[in-house]
């Protein structure tokens, strides 16, 4: 177990000034072409590309240290277990949890939210209890609560948003009341980039005795997260948006909450003692990790966190802010473009439509220019309904993007204009 000084070293080591070109060299995929054009990857919000450091760590795991974890008495299993629990400890330090026992490995953000809805929600929420969501939510933070509503009769309340896509703190405060048991909000909107003021959200929730779950799928990528400083009860995120592998994610939960929660799935690794009459369950986090987990996935996640933490967060933020400002400026200069999501302080995600050209057609034309963007509803249909649109084109920026990527996007949009007249 690492001690406190190591934690500071891990998370705040600004080893070098931020150099996007150097970052690009770490990502092998960025040197390939698409339709004979250089790849312009603007879809990190859906899933980020992987640096050599992550790819190598996964390869090393399979080449040299792979076996199933726990209970193996042989060397390789011990090594794999060490790597697996080492990854947990790395996540703990990354988000500043009090204990590694507060870190549960899941398939991703979606499974983490489902775990809380099923286990905590199933055990502690009942008819008439209120769960507060917002208009900004991804389907992954809507549907699990609807499923819970069908089973238990909870009531869902939705914090509205305005025409800028801002999170309306006053409206939120008005919705939270004595019946509110949980506030489940995204940290950063995956469509608009809106940043939800989690600290204020938590303060208001606490005043009403409600717990807080944060969907951090986008949030963990765009700023350092300190779960103790934020005082959230649950924080969920995925490895694959954080430059790590897919199939691995994290549920952070306060230890006392996790300890009170029943198992989510049954199987190996999550038990203490099994007989046909009765089974006793392991304490968290093992209680929530039934079956063989994605072992190499945790190794890759560890490497991804090391990679992300090697940059100065302020320099990364400045870089992303520059890209966002530049993209906003260039897109705003196009008469045909309408931007969605202009809340102050937003993350580096831009969503837009273009006159009457459907996002799908724009996406196809951009693809032929080597520009990868996401088009459609972005798993946020209620938000699309709010703006009364079928979908948007979304460009989301990562560590490796540069102003040249924005220029290629704009050139691609010129081509759209040319074809659609």
């Amino acid at each position, binding site marked *: 177990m690492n001690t406190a000084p190591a934690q500071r070293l891990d998370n705040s080591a600004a080893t070098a000034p931020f150099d996007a070109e150097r970052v690009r060299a770490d990502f092998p995929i960025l040197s390939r072409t698409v339709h004979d054009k250089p790849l312009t990857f603007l879809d990190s919000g859906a899933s980020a590309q992987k640096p050599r450091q992550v790819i190598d760590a996964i390869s090393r795991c399979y080449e040299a240290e792979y076996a199933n974890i726990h209970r193996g008495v042989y060397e390789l299993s011990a090594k794999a277990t060490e790597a697996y629990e080492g990854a947990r400890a790395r996540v703990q330090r990354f988000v500043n949890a009090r204990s590694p026992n507060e870190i549960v490995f899941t398939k991703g953000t979606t499974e983490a939210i489902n775990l809380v809805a099923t286990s905590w929600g199933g055990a502690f929420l009942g008819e008439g209890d209120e769960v507060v969501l917002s208009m900004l939510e991804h389907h992954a933070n809507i549907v699990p609560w609807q499923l819970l509503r069908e089973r238990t009769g909870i009531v869902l309340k939705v914090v509205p948003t305005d025409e800028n896509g801002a999170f309306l703190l006053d409206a939120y405060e008005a919705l939270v009341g004595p019946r509110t048991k949980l506030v489940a909000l995204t940290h950063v909107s995956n469509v608009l980039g809106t940043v939800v003021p989690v600290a204020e959200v938590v303060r208001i929730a606490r005043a009403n005795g409600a717990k807080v779950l944060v969907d951090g799928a986008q949030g963990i990528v765009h700023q350092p997260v300190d779960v103790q400083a934020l005082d959230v009860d649950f924080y969920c995120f995925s490895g694959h948006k954080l430059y790590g592998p897919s199939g691995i994610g994290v549920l952070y939960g306060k230890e006392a909450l996790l300890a009170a929660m029943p198992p989510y799935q049954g199987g190996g690794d999550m038990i203490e003692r099994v007989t046909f009459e009765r089974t006793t369950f392991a304490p968290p986090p093992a209680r929530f990790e039934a079956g063989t987990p994605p072992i190499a996935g945790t190794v890759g996640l560890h490497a991804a966190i090391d990679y992300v933490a090697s940059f100065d967060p302020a320099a990364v933020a400045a870089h992303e802010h520059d890209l966002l400002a530049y993209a906003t400026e260039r897109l705003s200069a196009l008469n045909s473009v309408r931007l969605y999501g202009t809340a102050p302080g937003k993350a580096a995600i831009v969503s837009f439509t273009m006159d*009457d*050209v*459907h*996002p*799908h*057609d724009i996406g*196809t*034309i951009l693809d*032929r220019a080597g520009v990868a963007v996401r*088009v*459609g*509803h972005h798993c946020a*249909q209620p938000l*699309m309904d709010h703006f009364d649109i*079928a*979908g948007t084109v979304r460009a989301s920026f990562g560590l490796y993007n540069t102003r040249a990527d924005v220029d290629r996007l704009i050139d691609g949009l010129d*081509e759209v204009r040319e*074809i*659609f*007249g």
Partner: protein
Amino acid sequence: MSELRELYQEVILDHGKSPRNFGKPPAVTGESHGHNPLCGDTITIYVDVANDVVTDIGFEGRGCAISMASASMMTEMLRGKSRDEVEAMFAEFHALVASTEPACEAGFETPDLDKLIVLAGVREFPMRVKCATLPWHTMKAALEGESEEITTE
């Protein structure tokens, strides 16, 4: 011609921008809803069938240029056709946009279908084939009186 120009030919852009037969016909004997959950596009096809002949057809919905053009051109083509003719056209259209065979060098059994050859460009864009076929699948369901929503998935 580049693959993009092949896909977005003038006639497709025109139908996409000003779809024909957009709206619900005065008399309707069958209707069906189509949905592409990937992009959220929706379409409703209305048919008026008398003596096994499509006497009127119209559609509503929103979607990309390809799906709107495909729906528009389809409705122009199907008015006055018998169920059997529609069935044959459906099969030929499907082969046109989804098959890997050269695009109908031998011509079509249904002469009118020549007009739809402009949609063959979609073959080079596998992610977009469903945009072109959704209106046809939805139309078929409307003809057959199926109440379940048609999806591309």
